[in-house]
C-alpha cells in the first residue's frame, strides 16, 4: 500500500498531477476526519483538508521516501489545524460561550435525569456539546496528541515525532488530555443511582 503512495509521490514530483490526484482521493476522507476532530467544525475541517494538500504539494520535494506518506500528511494536517485554531482563538475572543446560560449543575441534572421517556436526540446533542466543550479546553499539543492516539490509533512514537517531542513527553501529553477530559466529563458518565 505504501509502495503505491511512494510511487504516486515520485510521479507527482515529476509533474504528474494525476498521481497527486490519487493521493488526494486516497487520503482526503481520513484527513477530513482528523481535521474535524482537531477543529470541531465542519467548514474549518474542509478548509484544513484543502490547505493540507496544497502544502503537501508545495513541500513534496521535502518528503523523505523512507518516511510514511500518511504520517507526513497527518503532520501537515495537524499543523494546518493548529494554525487555524490559533487564528480562531485570536479572532473569537469575544464570541459567545458554548453554554446557554444555565449552570453545570442544572445541565447535569438534565443529563442524568431518570425521566422514563427522555428525548434521546436532545440528550445526545447535549452530550456532544459537552464533549466538544471539553475538547476545546485542551491545549493544541494535548488535543493533537489525544486525537492522534485515541481516534487515529497512532503509536506514541509517531505522535512524538509529529509534535517534535520525546516519547515520554508525548505519553504525558496524552495523559494530561485524558485527565482534563475526565474532569469535565466524569459527572456525565457516573452510573445512574436510580438504575442501581
Amino acid at each position, binding site marked *: 500500500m505504501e509502495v503505491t503512495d511512494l510511487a504516486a509521490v515520485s510521479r507527482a514530483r515529476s*509533474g504528474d*498531477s494525476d498521481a*497527486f*490526484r490519487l493521493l*488526494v*482521493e*486516497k487520503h*482526503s*476522507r481520513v484527513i*477530513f*476526519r482528523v481535521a*474535524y*476532530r482537531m477543529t470541531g467544525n*465542519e*467548514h474549518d475541517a*474542509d*478548509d484544513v*483538508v*484543502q490547505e493540507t*494538500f*496544497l502544502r503537501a*504539494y*508545495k513541500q513534496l520535494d521535502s518528503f523523505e521516501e523512507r518516511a510514511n506518506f500518511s504520517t507526513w500528511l497527518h503532520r501537515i494536517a495537524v499543523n494546518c489545524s493548529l494554525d487555524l485554531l490559533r*487564528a480562531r482563538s485570536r*479572532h473569537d475572543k469575544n464570541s459567545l460561550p458554548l453554554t446557554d446560560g444555565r449552570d453545570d449543575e442544572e445541565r447535569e441534572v438534565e443529563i442524568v435525569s431518570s425521566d422514563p421517556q427522555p428525548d434521546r436526540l436532545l440528550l445526545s446533542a447535549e*452530550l*456532544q456539546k459537552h*464533549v*466538544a466543550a*471539553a*475538547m476545546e479546553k485542551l491545549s493544541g499539543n494535548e488535543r493533537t496528541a489525544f486525537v492522534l*492516539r*485515541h*481516534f487515529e490509533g497512532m503509536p*506514541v512514537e509517531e505522535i512524538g515525532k509529529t509534535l517534535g517531542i520525546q516519547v515520554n513527553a508525548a*505519553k*504525558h501529553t*496524552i*495523559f494530561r488530555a*485524558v*485527565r482534563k*477530559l*475526565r474532569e469535565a*466529563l*466524569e459527572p*456525565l*458518565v457516573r452510573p445512574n443511582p436510580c438504575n442501581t
Partner: protein
Amino acid sequence: MQHLTEEQLVAHYYHDDDAPAAAASHLLECPDCRAQYETIRRVLTLVGDAPVPERGDHYAEEVWTRLRWKLGARRRRMQWTSFAAAAAVLAIAFFAGVWWHSRGSRTAPSNIANNKGPGVVQSVAATSQASDRVLLVVVGDHLESSERMLAELANANPKQTFDVPSDRAADLVASNRMYRQTAATRGDRRIASLLSDLEPILVELSHAGKTLSPDELGAIQKRIESKQLLMKVRVMTAQPAPPPSNSNSL
C-alpha cells in the same frame, strides 16, 4: 498493595504501558483501581462516540476539483511571470512617459539647464505622486468591480446555490494579476498585498463552473470574512487619491 496511578491507568487503556500483564492482574484484584479504570474507560468511550459529519460519496473528487485549480495556478505562475514581465515593462514605459511629461511641463528652464540642482528632486517627487494617482485611479476601477462581486458573494444566501459570473471573474483575475505585478514592481506594498489576498478568490470563482454549491459558497464566504477582504477593498476604494502636486513649488 500499591495502587496504579491515573497515568498508568491511561497508559494501560491505550496499551502503552511497560508492564501490561502486571497492571491487568492488579486491576483484577483491586476494586478501587478497577473503578478508576472503569471511569476513564467510560469517559473515553463517550468522547469516542462523538460523530464526525458524513462527507458525500464524491468528497475526494470535490476536494480535487477545488485543489486542481490552485495547483494549476501554481504551474501557470511561470507562464504568468513572462506576461507580468511584459506588463511591468509597459508600466515602466508608461510611468516614464508621465515623468517625462511632468518634467517637461513643470521644470523651470534653469533646472533643465542645470539638472543637478534641487529641481530634479522636486520633479521626481511630483512624478511619483502623479504615478500614484494614476495607479490608484486605474486600480480603483478594478477594486470597485471586485468589491461588487465580493458583496454579491458575501450577501448570498448560504443555504442556496450561487450563480457564478465566471466571465466577469476571469476578467478580474487577468486585470488583478497585472495590477498586482505593477504595484509590486513600484513598491506599493499595500495595494500589492490587497490584490494578492483578492486573487485566490477570483481564481476560484473563475474556475468554479456555473454554480457554487451551498458548501462551496459557505467556504468562500468564510474566507472573505476571515481575511476581512470586503472591508479592506472598501477602505482602499474609499481612499482619496493623493492631491495633485503644486506646480508652483517647482
